[in-house]
């Protein structure tokens, strides 16, 4: 059982070793001239201002939830499409029902105005 995973263990240890090796080489042989700017968390980014925690409009969460809804639809669609031939008509009907249920939710959200930004 577990010995099947032996190659994975080898890859994992090589990956960890290589990671350490590259960083160690940089530390050992690279020149080092630190400045305040270089020490900042995001060296090439914008200068940070204000607090990290800000209030975010609740609408983003709504969009996020809707995104997850349709994202999951894709998760179901992909394996379904692969085995559609074996599933036959039954599979086709099943998926139509599934999409129908999602569609009801979509119409509901639309009519409720959740997709309007203002």
């Amino acid at each position, binding site marked *: 059982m577990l010995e099947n995973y032996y190659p994975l263990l080898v890859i994992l240890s090589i990956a960890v070793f290589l990671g350490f090796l590259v960083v160690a080489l940089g530390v050992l042989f690279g020149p080092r001239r630190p400045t305040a700017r270089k020490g900042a968390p995001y060296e090439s980014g914008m200068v940070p201002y204000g607090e990290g925690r800000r209030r975010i409009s609740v609408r983003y969460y709504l969009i996020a939830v809707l995104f997850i809804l349709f994202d999951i639809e894709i998760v179901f669609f992909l394996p379904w499409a692969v085995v559609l031939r074996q599933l036959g008509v*039954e599979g086709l009907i099943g998926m139509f029902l599934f999409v129908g*249920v999602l569609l*009801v939710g979509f*119409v*509901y959200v639309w*009519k*409720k105005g959740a997709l309007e930004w203002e």
Partner: protein
Amino acid sequence: MNSDLLTILLPTLALTGWALLLLLVDLWIPREHKGITAVLAAAGLAAALGLTLSQGRLPAMTDSTVMVISDGYALFLDVLFLASGLAGVALAHEYLKRANIANGEYYALLLFSVAGMMLMAHAYNLILIFLALELLSIPLYILSGINRPRLESEESALKYFLLGAFSSGFVLYGTALIYGATARTDLPGIFAALQSAPVNPVIFILGAVLLLVGLAYKVSAVPFHMWTPDVYEGAPTPVTGFMAVAVKAAGFAVLGRILMAAFPTVGKDLTPILWALAALTMLVGNLAAITQKSIKRMLAYSSIAHAGYLLMALVPFSNRLVNSDVQASLLFYLVAYALTGLGAWAVVTALEKQNGDGLKLEDYAGLGKSHPWLALAMTVFMLSFTGIPLTLGFWGKFYLFRTAIEGGFTLLAVIGVVTSLISAYYYLRVLMYMYMRAGSPSVERAPWLQVTAVAAALAVVLISFIPNVLLNLAGNSLLLLP
């Protein structure tokens, strides 16, 4: 196509489809006319009830994938759930208008929840049981928060959601461990695996206990009851009534099915746990109810206490000799509790004010003079909760205690009787307020609530004269045993 599956689930599927349609149709119904949605929802429930009854007693069978089952047990519970759903519509319509939350979503969500309960009654596989549990719970998380601007309602929804998600986790973990031990998730498969294959007892019992814990959360058995008073108090009163009755019934339905269909051979491991749960639930529920000032909290603790009585019926589940009595007394008590509970919650809903006042015991003072019919109905419910003769609650408790004694758990029955006596204190206190204190309670004009209350009270009294009919009905609604 797996046609048995469709046949067995036809009423459930029809109800789900109707709920989806209702969700859409409601979008075009103006806010002043949400009564149309209520009527449509009631029509859907009634149609599903008609479909269930017309299917009658399908031969007890499972579909070819052993996902669902149809037997008398499921049929009996289907009828109970659909009737509770109808009561849920009757309780809500006027309340929603009064509280200014006349949303059509209430009805669609209620229908989804009832569909989940029906699926729960038919589920014969731990995976499907989990799905049914979610389908039943998720609409209720939303419903308990439907009174949104009110903080208590939001608090209730959040608490219910967190604890519900927690308990779902327990159920899933238990399912995983049971699958790990037996390599099966279908209940007859688990039963067969326990008898033939070598099963790792530690993993299996751990899984079974986790499953029990998850379901104990759902039926609010002590010590997993902490969420109940807060959630029940904060949720809109009709939702609370529906939760206290139907959700509890669904929880016990599936608990009974799992215990009797899959676990009868591990009775000696699980019975002590159930015994302790039942005893604790009866004691804590009844003792805590005594100190409550709000009638909603009092009824919440009373529903915990009644979960204890119902658990008592399940304690001798592994004893094949009393098996039919266990089922009959469980189903009988569920009906008695549903009628009494829905009626009592209807009265509470009728007295609640728009701003959420009118829920204290003092608000019931003088009800006997000003609204004799409502007070009489409430009297019947309180007596039935206590278990006084001439009410259905008496027979319910009588059969429960008899089952416990037949199963050899006399001490448990004694605890049941003693706690019933204790409970008389706080139930009869309501009567004292209604008849012996002066006051001028204001009752909302709500014909449907009063119809529900009076009809439930009549049923509680009238059926108590012919308990055998109901008991035979419950006793003939046999659970298919593997």
